[in-house]
Structure formats: C-alpha cells, structure tokens
C-alpha cells in the first residue's frame, strides 16, 4: 500500500503486542474515546521469492502465492526466482496472480528453486528432505552440519539439483512426483 502506518482493530491485550515496538495502541484521532492498534509499515530492503514463470521484462505469473504481490509492493528491491523464463508474459497469460515487471528488479532462472519446499503445479514439498531438516533443526550442532552440507557444501545450482532433488522429479512426470510425496 505504501502508507506509513495502518490502524488495525484487534490484538490489544496480547503478549505479542507487548513484545513488538512497531505496533502501538493509540486513541482514534477522529473518535478519541476509542482505542485501536496502529501498525508501522514494513518496508523490506529486498524481497526474494520463487514463482512458476516470468518473462525477460520481469513480468511474473505468481500462481497461487498471491501475497507475494503485497511483499513485492512493500519492498525496495525485488528478486524473483522462477521455474521457467518465457519471452513475454501479460496478465492475460498468467495462470495465477500477475505481478507487473515494474515492481521487479531481477529474474533468476532457477529450476526447483523452491526445493525442499514445493512449487504448485510443478512439484510438491520434498517430505523426506523436510523430515531431515526438522531433525537437523533440533540442535545447533546438527543444524550447522546440515547447512554446511546442503547450503555451503555445493558449488553450483546444478550440483544442488544433482545431489538433493530426486532424480525422478527432474525427468519424470508430474504423476511420479505426486507418488513420492504421498
């Protein structure tokens, strides 16, 4: 929206509010006997998210992750990784919500870029990998080992795909992907 703050009805009395300095309880300026929360705008420096398709001008087919549009509008710089780069994309071509290129600074072709999470219409969440992640996240040592191997232990995107994305997903049909997730 680009406004400096918004009033929000709700949340008063919650411990969440006690622990945040970007939300305050203030009298309504037009009806001073009533109070509401006022939330400061979040303006991220950089937003990065993954989508199904984009073109070279930065137009993005967001798919069902529509709130990425809100994220893109709020952020100063927007980088979108995509499964597929096409020559041109208009809002009529989009299968989901359309994000115009004027909000987007860079498009990166990164097949399976959402892995180990899923990309709707392309591949599901990699449940086996997620299980491994959850186990690693239980201790600082295990998590450090996970990051060393999966994040810093690969030299390129191609190496990541070869080592961590199931081979049958990269060649197989959508049906084969679905079977694995079940």
């Amino acid at each position, binding site marked *: 929206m680009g406004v400096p703050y918004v009033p*929000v*009805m*709700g*949340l*008063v*009395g*919650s*411990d*969440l509010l006690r*622990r945040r300095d970007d939300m305050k*309880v203030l009298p*309504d300026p037009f009806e001073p*006997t*009533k*109070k*509401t929360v006022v939330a400061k705008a979040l303006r991220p420096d950089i937003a990065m998210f993954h989508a199904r398709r984009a073109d070279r001008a930065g137009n993005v087919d967001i798919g*069902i992750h*529509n*709130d990425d*549009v*809100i994220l893109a509008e709020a952020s100063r710089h927007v980088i979108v990784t995509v499964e597929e780069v096409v020559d041109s994309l208009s809002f009529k071509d989009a299968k989901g*919500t359309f994000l115009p290129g004027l909000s987007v600074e860079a498009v990166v072709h990164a097949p399976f870029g959402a892995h180990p999470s899923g990309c709707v219409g392309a591949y599901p969440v990699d449940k086996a990998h997620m299980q491994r992640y959850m186990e690693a996240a239980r201790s600082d040592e295990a998590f450090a080992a996970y990051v060393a191997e999966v994040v810093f232990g690969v030299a390129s995107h191609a190496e990541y795909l070869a080592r961590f994305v199931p081979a049958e997903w990269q060649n197989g049909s959508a049906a084969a992907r679905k079977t694995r997730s079940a």
Partner: protein
Amino acid sequence: MSRPYSDDELLAVLLSREVRDREVTACGAISMIPAAGMLLARETHAPDADLIILGSTAFMPFHTSRQFHFLCQRGDLGLFFLSGVQIDRFGNYNLHLLGKDVDRPEVRFPGGYGGGMIFYAARRTVMFRTEHTLRCFVPKVDFISSCGNSPEEVRRFGRLTRVHTPLATLVNTVPPGELRLGSVHPPYTLDDVVQRTGFDLGVSGEPPRTPEPTAEELRVLRQVVRRIMIETDTYGDWAAKNIQAA
C-alpha cells in the same frame, strides 16, 4: 467413552449449529473440523451461508489475504472458528509457545497475527478443542495470543462466544468476562468436566445436557459433507479417514 459418533463428528455437528444463514463464516488453515461443520450447516439449516475456508481453493473467494483482512476490519465477518493450544478462564488463548520463559520456550507453535486480529473483528468467534484436559484448560495461558475480553474503550466488533470440546460447551459470560459451563455432552458428567478443567467454571446445580447429534445431522455429515470434502479436495484425506462412510 463410547458414542455412536466420533469426537470429530460431534464437534463438526456442534460447530455447524453455530453457523447462521446468510452470514459470512470463516475458518483458518488446518481447520478440518470447522470446514466439515461449515459445510454441514450449508447442507442443512444455512443454505445461503457464505463460507470461507482459508487454505482451500473451492471455498476461497479471495486472491490475496489483504481482501480477507479488510473484510474482517469492516466488520463483515459474522463468525470465525479458532482453536488454541491453551485456553484460560478469561477466554484468552495461546497459539504461540509453552513455557515460562518467552525467549527460551519449551515448545513453539505457529503463533499468528490473524487470529489475534479476528478475535476482535469477527462478530462472534467460536473456539473448539479436540481434547478437554488440564494441560489445555489452564488458569492462565503461558502466552496471550489474543484476549477474550478487553476494556470498553478498545474498539471491538465482537468476541469469543463459546468453546466446544468433546466433553462440554463453555460459554464466555460477560460480565464478568469468564468462561462458564454451558452444557455437558452425554454420556459425560459434570464431574468429568470439572476434573479436567484447570479453573472454576462457576457451576451451580446440575448443568444442561447438550442435545446430541441427530440422525439427520449425522446422515448429512457422512453422506453429503464427506463426499463434498473429498470431491473438492477440501481436507479430502482427513474426511475420508475421520468421517464415517455412510
């Protein structure tokens, strides 16, 4: 405790009775029982209820969360279904964490801003909990995700009205802004409920018995709602497993 219906089926029926025709009713993500209850209401007494099942595609009229947020803020949401890990005497709920030290919690849950906002904005919020135990119904929650009752000067459209569990229905009684026992679900007794609630329910005398699910309610749930959930992929796997096939 043996009943001719499961706890999930009972809760779905109790929640369905909360839905009013021509009203907007919504539930959040991972809300299988409310989804079943809302569909049961639509197939019985509330054919023109507007249903919003967040996370579904079949019962989701919006394409961004912004639209749902402002629907709530306008006061157009009639009823919201919510659950909590802990619920206390004052109608506060906790979906954030367990433990006394907020910075080093024993367990962390998804938390949520949305419920904390909707608790104020929805005209009525009805909570449900699949267990009725001392660890759930506590004197004071470890972390207040949203508060059941707030001072008069705070702008608010609505508040918690009732809490349904497999044992009983609790009612948010204002004043004093505390949960009181509304009715007990057969075959449980008042003593069962008191033993498993961590605060005083203000009981005097024998409480009413909850009207049990009718044959018709169970028939529609099992024949119609189960099929709709499977066919529309609205928690279809859950419905296939947890609602008995007719």
